[in-house]
């Protein structure tokens, strides 16, 4: 049953490029021939569906329906590989085994979930069902920034936790707490990813310093790039511009995920 790995992507603060990284990581792992699911549990501000070219009208049932018990996980999985559309990067995913499990972006449903709270066992059962129903190798979870209850649930159930941070002291401070929490919750594989590093810094040094600070591996240091900002949310950057420095470093992180036993 526990065949597939749950990989949570988290950041303490917003704006680290978490959703973009999650979508690109999932896509790279799917490109490597794995069966991959992406769950958007950032219920307060879901956005990853946009990166996969999905608009609200195309979305059917969402994770919210599942958490309310009004939909089965089967009904929610949206096969990205069958609906790649026109975007240049996305189109490379044609025929790949990648499913998106979106959250509802309808305000009323969001507030209802927040009011009711999410049960750990219900969420965990849902994730395990997702893995077994779709025979997944990896299930990526795009979490909400910060350490609220839903995020703690995601961390608690993860096999792999990737914490994304920018190389500044505010992010480092927040990350230190998340690292402590992840250890307290016995997450078996913890790795860090530094994003939006200014090119003027020595990336190798950043990696060494942060690894030493947290005693945890840094799977990649990715540059701040206006190219990514320009690409905005219309496409998967690492597939569209595979030779870009950001994309190369991101593939390194995907390799680190694939290397987890």
């Amino acid at each position, binding site marked *: *049953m*526990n065949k597939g790995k749950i990989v949570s992507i988290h950041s303490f603060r917003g704006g680290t490029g978490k959703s973009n990284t999650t979508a690109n990581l999932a896509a790279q792992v799917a490109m490597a021939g794995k069966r991959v699911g992406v769950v958007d549990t950032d219920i307060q501000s879901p956005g990853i569906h946009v990166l996969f070219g999905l608009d609200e009208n195309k979305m059917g049932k969402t994770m919210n329906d599942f958490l309310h018990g009004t939909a089965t996980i089967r009904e929610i999985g949206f096969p990205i590989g069958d609906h790649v559309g026109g975007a240049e990067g996305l189109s490379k995913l044609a025929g790949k085994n990648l499913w998106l499990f979106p959250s509802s972006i309808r305000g009323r449903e969001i507030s209802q979930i927040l009011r009711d709270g999410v049960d*750990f*066992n219900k969420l*965990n059962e849902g994730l395990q069902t997702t893995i077994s129903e779709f025979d997944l190798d990896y299930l990526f979870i795009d979490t909400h920034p910060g*350490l609220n*209850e839903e995020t*703690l*649930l995601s961390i*608690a*159930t993860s096999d792999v936790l990737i914490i994304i941070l920018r*190389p500044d*002291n505010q992010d*480092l*401070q927040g990350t*230190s*707490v998340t690292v*402590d*929490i992840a250890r*307290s*919750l*016995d997450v*078996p594989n913890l790795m860090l990813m530094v994003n939006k590093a200014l*090119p*003027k*810094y*020595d990336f190798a*040094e*950043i990696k060494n*310093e*942060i690894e030493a*600070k947290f005693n945890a591996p840094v799977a990649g240091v990715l540059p701040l790039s206006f*190219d990514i900002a320009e690409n905005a949310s219309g496409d998967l950057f690492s597939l569209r511009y595979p030779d870009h420095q950001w994309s190369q470093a991101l593939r390194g992180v995907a390799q680190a995920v694939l290397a987890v036993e």
Partner: protein
Amino acid sequence: MGSGESAYETVSGTGRRKIMNEDITRRLKESTMFNGLSDDALIALAEKTSLRKLAMGDVLMRKGDFGDSLFLIHEGWVKIVTTNSDGDELILNKCGPGESIGEMALLDQDPRSATVIALEDVEALELSRDVFEEILDQRPDVSFAVIRGYSRRLRFATNYIERAIDWTQKIAAGDYSFIDQTQPIIDQKNSNDNKAIQLLSAFFIMVRKVKEREDGLKKQLEKLTFEIDQVRRKQEFEEITGTEFYANLKEQAKTLRQKRTQQ
């Protein structure tokens, strides 16, 4: 200084030989402005040119002067200069046989944008605006050829601008590889497109300097210093883990992980 006498000898064997007729038409044909003209149009133009002779240091035109004629260098070299803010002479370009100077003055009313000084004995053919306009009135074919010449140059300039945009984007992306690949095209000494070449040379010098500066900066990378407030870290950790919710979660997670490892 210039004499204003006709440069063109209409009746062979009479008078002092100045410049051979064919030389003048050849010079006109070499210029970008007139190279599309038919032979008889060139002859009509050539008849209207006058000869200006200059010794080294003579000024052909001065920046700010009212300009009303075009000069075609027949013999010798001139320098095109301006002054910088300190009043020092700045050489913008040098022009030699076959090159034209001030041709815009035939069409617009603007003052001369630079000063032109002879670097040695120089013979230049002068075509004044009045004369030129007279020809344009009489010969539509000349008008068309001149317009065609201008549009060709405009197109050429546009091409260069497009390439410059492409290169600028490459520089912005930190890709300087085009410098090595593109170098040969700006070394074509015999090209008619001196201004474009000048611009490109300046551009390439700029790119090399930017690259040098960037390489220099890379060597002295700024060092980041990371600080974690350990007291705050502990406080925040305890705030989160001190709740009943967390205690339950930790217990549930523990059970879950035990189950997973058993499977």
